[in-house]
């Protein structure tokens, strides 16, 4: 049974369509990514799945419970972290966790043990007495994740989980998520705008302007671009570019000091360039297209269009 089933979800803010019939399924024990630029509707979708926003059309099932008819059933299954931290800055780390435990009906020694466990797991035990507002961004995020693991949810919903994390902390966080999935079969749904994070997902759904424009594993998505990507480092890229056009009728893309070519059968081209233009390049690299290329191909927009979606939660929805 799929852990999350999103079926023909539509959502409007007045006349503006935020989601236009989105459907996908997340099997149990999978890390699934929702990738999309600003205004793609991914935060709206996230809010609908996490029971914070009423469904206007379509249906969502989480852990076998229907989001609109049994929100509490869903809430018991899910651990949610939001883009903006939900910690109370005036409480200590431990107090925040105790508070969270009480909200989930945990108390006494059971709660104490759970708190110790998640604090150890996320390496925040030595900060238990610190006020949450005094913590760095990375530590806050860890407490946030500890908080959402406290009630042993079987499904994690993470909205831009690496916001404010440096690469090291981001790497640690993903190690934690991957071990949760591997060892405990936890299903994880993340929204992200970082290609590096998207690569870590087993499957991805790409949202753009409220529509699901692609869904599949990173490899499957890359195949949509087709061909290979050849990167050539050269001392004189302009000259090389002209030579490539003359000899092979190739259009190359200048990226910094390098040239990039997207082409079927890249390995043949690689051999041709290597044998016919020796001395014109310093290195030839053949690779599969990146998710970045996929995104550009599907949306017609570059990566600069993908920024962190501003949390819409501060606005009122009617």
């Amino acid at each position: 049974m799929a852990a999350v089933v999103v079926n023909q979800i539509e959502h409007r803010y007045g006349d503006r369509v935020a989601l236009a019939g989105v459907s996908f399924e997340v099997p149990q024990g999978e890390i699934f990514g929702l990738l999309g630029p600003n205004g793609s509707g991914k935060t709206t979708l996230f809010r609908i799945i996490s029971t914070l926003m009423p469904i206007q059309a379509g249906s969502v099932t989480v852990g076998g419970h229907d989001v609109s008819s049994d929100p509490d059933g869903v809430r018991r299954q899910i651990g949610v972290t939001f883009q903006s931290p939900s910690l109370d800055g005036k409480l200590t780390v431990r107090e925040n966790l105790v508070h969270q435990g009480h909200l989930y009906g945990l108390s006494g020694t059971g709660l104490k043990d759970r708190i110790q466990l998640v604090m150890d797991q996320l390496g925040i035990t030595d900060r238990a007495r610190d006020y949450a507002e005094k913590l760095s961004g990375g530590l806050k995020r860890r407490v946030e994740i500890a908080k959402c693991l406290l009630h042993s949810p079987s499904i994690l919903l993470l909205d831009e989980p690496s916001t404010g994390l440096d690469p090291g902390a981001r790497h640690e966080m993903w190690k934690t998520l991957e071990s949760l999935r591997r060892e405990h079969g936890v299903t994880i749904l993340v929204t992200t705008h970082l290609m590096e994070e998207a690569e870590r997902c087993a499957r991805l759904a790409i949202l753009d302007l409220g529509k699901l424009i692609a869904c599949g594993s990173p490899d499957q998505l890359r195949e949509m671009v087709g061909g290979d990507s050849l990167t050539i480092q050269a001392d004189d890229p302009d000259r090389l570019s002209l030579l490539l056009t003359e000899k092979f009728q190739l259009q190359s893309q200048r990226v910094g000091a390098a040239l990039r070519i997207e082409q079927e059968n890249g390995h043949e081209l690689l051999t041709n360039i290597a044998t016919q233009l020796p001395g014109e390049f310093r290195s030839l690299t053949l690779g599969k297209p990146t998710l970045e290329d996929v995104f550009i191909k599907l949306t017609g927009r570059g990566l600069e269009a993908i920024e962190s979606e501003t949390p819409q939660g501060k606005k009122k929805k009617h």
Partner: protein
Amino acid sequence: MSMMQPSTTAISTERVQTGNAWLWASWTLAVREVVRFLRQRSRVTGAIGQPILFWILFGAGLSGSFQFGGGDTTAGMSFQEYFLPGVAALIVLFTSIFSSISIIQDRNEGFLQGVLVAPVPRSSIVMGKILGGTALALLQAFLFVIVAPLLQFVGLAPPMTLQLSAFSLIGAFLFLMLISLGLTSLGYLFAWKIDSVQGYHAVMSLVLLPMWLMSGAFFPGTDSVWLTWLIRLNPLTYGVAGLRRVLTVDQSVLVGVPPLWLCVVVTTLFAAVLFAIDVWITRRDQAV
């Protein structure tokens, strides 16, 4: 520091025992409210300091202009003494306002969404917030009712006729609790629908403070017909009147004050109705 010690500490995925979710959720939210308040010293001083200052300054400044009750033999009641229940209501009002503002902050800072995705009844979220605010308001106002009469001995207040008996203290406690519940519920309602602290301040100046001014807290009825009606229709009038009734010994100053039963009924209804509206609006519009 490693974020994770692989496999040594396993997270158990077995379902955790859920106790009485409603009580736990209300309790923990209420406790949080109180803890937050106590950790913000400026709030403590502001909420109790300002009304006491008002009481002393207005009391001293207006003492010559008012005279209530008193016969040929008795001195009657000073304005400051008349003003006392009103100031207690003002403390309740200020504390309720501040604890309601925290809903707006909770929403903007992201704390509220964490609460809203928890499997707790929406009514317990409302209850937690309101109980927390009520506890704070009640505590401060009750402290004031006990401490204020003592100020006459240090010269900050004129001599008073008021005597604090066990009955009047219990009565005052219960009435302050009812008023606190009502005003915190009212504040919750506004805070839920308003998305900025600035907007809330406008409501405070235009609705909440006038409501207090026209509750008989500051001055008794007047000759103006419309103002008299406004006072009569203001639910807070009955809270202040009830408080006045349980605290006052000299019956001659209670002429025109609504009867105690009416005060209890109106104040209780006011709190109950607003609480119900709060629960309804929290269910209907999550507003995050």
